[in-house]
Structures are given as structure tokens and as C-alpha cells.
């Protein structure tokens, strides 16, 4: 990890922050980007105090597409070079509201998918050109199958997973590693207080699994690992039966 320069987008999310922590711990330089200035600044200060690595930051909005090329440029300038991108953007939103209010649905789709696709387009071109690097993107198990309880969010994450799959296919030729992360339930503000949640993992454990998968050059990682099994079962249920279930 030493001498790696990484752009971390969505740095204020607990999963992405935990990944940034472990990268800083291993000596990486970071450029953090998020929407909330106060918050991203605090995290940048924390990382640079604890791990004594260079940490810079800037603001990013998922839907301000015209500024995304700038972001990649800024990261490169402030760190001197760019070896990889960690990106985890988007909000869960409210499925009920998204069903009756398309503006809300649109916001979920844009923040989880379109915005990420836009940033990754610029980042991918840069990494492809330099002929090495990596992309670690946080998708979700929710993108593996559409379910009535969260299909708007799920569709955005599903689209992201497909985008990453295609990107991996394209960038493999230039030595750029694309890792799709599919977390199950993680102990974050997204899940806090939600009733009936089981098998909840801590962001730190998710980060450890992500870094391990990254070192092993994995393509897709479910975290915690047993979600691979759960999703395999959920995906294999015939649609005729699935549509009658309450998931």
C-alpha cells in the first residue's frame, strides 16, 4: 500500500471511511471527496494525525457531472499521481416514497448509479491510459435481485454492478483491476435501528475483507462472505415463486 495514491469518493460513509483508514494505516496517500465539507475535513484530519500520511480533500456532488473530470484531476495534482479509486456513493432512500414520488426515485438512481458511473468514466480513462491501477466500488447485494422492499435502490446498485462488470472486461487489457464490493447488512446509519436485521457486520470487518479481496485481485467480493451463499439462493428462486414472496 505504501506509495499508493488513492482517490476516495464518498469518504464520509462508514464503509468507505473504514477502507480509507486501513489504506492510510498501510501508508497510502489519500484524496478524500464527499458532499459534506465539515465531515470530510474531520475525517481527513483524523487520518493524517493517526497515520501520518498526506491526506487532502475536496467536495463532490454525485449529480454535478460536469465537475467530475475536475475531481480526478484534483486528486492527481494534490497527490502527484493516482493509482486507484475507492468509491461508495449513494443513499438508500425510502422505497415507499420512491414509488409515489419519482423525484425521490430519481435521486436514488442518480446518487447510486449515474453519479458513480460519471466519476468512474473519468477515473477509468486515466487509469487505462497509465496502464495500471485499481477501482474498488461499493455496490450492494440489493443489486443482485429486484425485491419489492427496495427495488429502486436495488436497480441502481444492479446497474452499477453491470457497469463495473463491463468496465472490468475493458480494463483487464490495460492492467487495471476492478473490484465490485457487495456488502450485506453492515452496521451503519443506513441499517441502525432497522428492526429484524440479522448478521450485521461492522464497517471495519467489511474493510478488512475488501482489502484482502483487493490484494488477491478478486473481481467480486460479498461481505461478510456468507452473503455470497445467501444471494446465490435468492437468485436461484424461480421468478414464478419469487414474485409471490415478501422479500
Amino acid at each position: 500500500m505504501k506509495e499508493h495514491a488513492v482517490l476516495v469518493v464518498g469518504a464520509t460513509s462508514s464503509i468507505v471511511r473504514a477502507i480509507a483508514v486501513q489504506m492510510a494505516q498501510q501508508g497510502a496517500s489519500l484524496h478524500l471527496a464527499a458532499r459534506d465539507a465539515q465531515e470530510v475535513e474531520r475525517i481527513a484530519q483524523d487520518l493524517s494525525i493517526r497515520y501520518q500520511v498526506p491526506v487532502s480533500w475536496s467536495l463532490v456532488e454525485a449529480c454535478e457531472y460536469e465537475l467530475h473530470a475536475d475531481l480526478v484531476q484534483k486528486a492527481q495534482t494534490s497527490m502527484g499521481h493516482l493509482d486507484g479509486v475507492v468509491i461508495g456513493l449513494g443513499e438508500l432512500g425510502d422505497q415507499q416514497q420512491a414509488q409515489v414520488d419519482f423525484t425521490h426515485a430519481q435521486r436514488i438512481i442518480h446518487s447510486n448509479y449515474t453519479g458513480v458511473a460519471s466519476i468512474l468514466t473519468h477515473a477509468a480513462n486515466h487509469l487505462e491510459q497509465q496502464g495500471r491501477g485499481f477501482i474498488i466500488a461499493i455496490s450492494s447485494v440489493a443489486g443482485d435481485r429486484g425485491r419489492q422492499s427496495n427495488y429502486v435502490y436495488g436497480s441502481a446498485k444492479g446497474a452499477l454492478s453491470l457497469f463495473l462488470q463491463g468496465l472490468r472486461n475493458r480494463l483487464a487489457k490495460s492492467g487495471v483491476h476492478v473490484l465490485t464490493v457487495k456488502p450485506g447488512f453492515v452496521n451503519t446509519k443506513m441499517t441502525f435501528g432497522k428492526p429484524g436485521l440479522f448478521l450485521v457486520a461492522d464497517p471495519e470487518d467489511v474493510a478488512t475483507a475488501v482489502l484482502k479481496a483487493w490484494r488477491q485481485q478478486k473481481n467480486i467480493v460479498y461481505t461478510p462472505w456468507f452473503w455470497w451463499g445467501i444471494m446465490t439462493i435468492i437468485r436461484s428462486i424461480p421468478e414464478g415463486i419469487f414474485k409471490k414472496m415478501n422479500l
Partner: protein
Amino acid sequence: MSQPGLPTLDASLCGWGRYPVIQGTVQRPEKASSFAKLIENDPGETLLAQGSARSYGDAAINSKGYTILTERMNRMLSFDEQTGRLRAEAGVTMQEVLETFVPRGWFPAVTPGTKYITLGGAVAFDVHGKNHHQDGAFSRHLHSLKILLASGDIVDCSAQHNPDLFWATVGGMGLTGIIQEVEFSLRRIETAYINSISIKAQNLYEAVSLFDKYESQYQYSVAWIDCLASGKHLGRSLMSFGNHASLEQLSPGRRVKPLQITHKKRVKIPFDFPAQLLNRYTMGCFNQAYFARQRAQEVQSVVDYDTFFYPLDFLQAWNRLYGKRGFVQYQCVFPLETSQSALVQMLQLCSQAGRGSFLAVLKRLGPQEGWLSFPMEGYTLALDMPVQPGLWKFLDRLDRLTIEFGGRVYLAKDARLGSDAFRAMYRDYPKWLAVKSRVDPDNRFTSNLAQRLQIEPVHERVGV
């Protein structure tokens, strides 16, 4: 208009002693922006911050409103390499401070006997360590605080700026507001080791005279006391003194990396021990063995800071040793003038009643800091006791003794003190209450401890 609040979670809550256990509702802010809205989000609800819930009783739980978990508000915000001043969010733990700064040659100026506390907790209880007789409590090394008040404002305070709020918050058990940021000093160290001596004292008089003798020579001092011993052995102790070791005091092997230590693997207590396991006979045997373990009168050694300061931390969930019903720690302090006679009477009571403790601790303290800060110039005794029939009556007797001798009990450990006894012990409470009434007139910040001790703002009638 109020914003939709943070998600809530209903949970069983308790302190380290696992008595009492209450049903409460928790919230967990993760961002400064959601922290700032805690007040306006839920007008009318009461709040209480909880750090890592290492206080023993009911000081960090609130069954009447929300208990606010500060664990994710744990960012370090600035550090001055010249002066060792650290500004951090209140949810940062002492363990994180140690892991970050010991390898760079800095050590917290004051640390209690566990490193799993948060900085917010260190302020709210104005914690003391083995160096209180020399260096005072945590508050003496505190430069400033940022606090979320009942008004919804986040304000700065220090001994110079807003001093009333500062001194009411230090030791104020979270009842003046929610601490957001803490700025305090670390001290320079050459090594991560402590040069220590361990001395046997055959009775209380010997122990006290050893404290007197070594008080100026050693920065850290503490005694493990056998509270079941009686007669001429009453108060026999194993005393431990120490100073930060210099580079020359280390063995050549350790000198290579003087600021690195190898952390011991933590052992986890896997289940609740049966409460009957702890009785006067098993404790008597344990104490006998513990005291006899050290053969020589005096043993000198250089130990790493973890071993010296946090001997119990390597036993994960050691509170399970006391069984399902939990335990309380009775920690009291007596003024210097009355200490000896008070301690003799208290130890006699314990030894007669057979209510001992594995971990009885005796320690010399220096003068008081905040209005509700526990320390006072004198001696403090701490006894761990499992919750058993007859315990409350016994502790009431200890309370009467404590008050009679002008002492007080430590609220961070307390789960059962009465409100009158509290007022008799904390003489500066009216001064504290005046500030509480001013900054939190509607009692937005309360805890089960505060409710038990009937701590609430008073309203003076002004005009018509």
C-alpha cells in the same frame, strides 16, 4: 421546523457493573451535522451521552429519553507536535490515543485503570489515575471543551472562557450537555515502559507510611489491599510505585525500539460465572495467594505501560466474573486528617461482614478540581462486590461511615447512593446546580443516576 431525527433503537442498557439493567432508546450520530441537530430534532425529549459505558452503575444510561452513543464521533482533529496538545471528538478512546501517540513518544497526562474509556467519559467523570497525588485529575490537563447545550448551541469553554460551564462539565456526569470535542495535553515519554517497584506492607499503617515515604519520589502509586485480612494484618497491601522509564533503564533488547510494546493477547471470559463462586472463602484464598505470590519484601521491575496501567484490560468482559446479577464498586475517599481511622473502621466492617473484594484498591489522592469531581486530598478505597442479598444495607452503613468522616463516594462507580447522602458528600453541589439550572433549565440532560439522586434544575421566581 424540526428535521426528521436520527433512527432510534430500543435496547437493554447498563454500565460495566451490569447493575442496574434498564430498557432504553438509543441514537447514534455519525456526523457532526447530525450531532448538531440532536436537540432540535426531538424537542422535549431528554438526552444523555454514553461513551463506552465503562462507568459501573447508572451514570451513562437514561431510561426516560434517549441515550446518545458517541462511539462513531471519534475523529482526532488536531495535534501539536511541539506541545503535545490533542483536540479530538469525545468518542475517541484512550486506547486509540495510546496506539497513536505512544510510538511517537507521548503519553496521556492522566489515565484511569482501563484504556477502554472515551475522552468524553474522562471529562464527564473527571477521571483520575495512579498519579493524582502529583498530577491531579484529567481536568488539570484539559484546555478546552466544545459542548452541545440544551439551547441547541455548540459552545466552547475552558478555565478562562466560560469557566462556570467548564467546571460544571468537568465531573458533571454529562448533565450539562453533550461533549463534542475535548482538547487536552499529552506528556513526553522516552520509553513505553514503567520503572516500578512492588512492596509488601503488612498492615494499613505500613501502607500509609509507604505512600507518605514515596509520594514525591514516584509519579505513580497504588496499593492492592486485602480487605479480608484482620487483626494485626488489617489492611495488608501489595503496593506498586512507578515512574516512566528512561532509555538507560531499559534492557539492551528493549532499547532498540523503546516506544514499541507487544500487546498481550486478550482472554475473553466466555460466560457469566455463577455468583456463588465468589464468597468469603474463595476470595480469602485468592487474596492469600495473591499476597503470597510475591516472596520478597521489595521487587523492582521494568514493565510495559499496558501491564502497569491496565492489568485487567487483557481480561475481556471480566465483569462476567461477578455473575448475572452484576456487581457494584464502592469507591470512597476520606480527607487526609480522618483517613486512617476511617479506613480502619471500614476495613473492620468489611472483614467482619466477610464482604471482601478481589480487587480492593487503596490510593493517595490530591486536591479536588471540579465541583462534582470525586478526588479530595486524602485516601481512596475501592471495593468490588457482587450484587447479593444484604448488600444494599451493608453499603448504607459504609455511606454513614463515609459521611461521618467527611468523605464521599465516586459517582462513576455508584449505582445505589441515596440523594441525601449524595448532598452530604458533595458540598459544592449547590454551586454546580446553579450552573446546571442556568444552562439546562428544562432538564434536557438527565441519567438514571441523576434521577436517583434527584439532580434537577431549580427555578428561581423572577418577577411576576
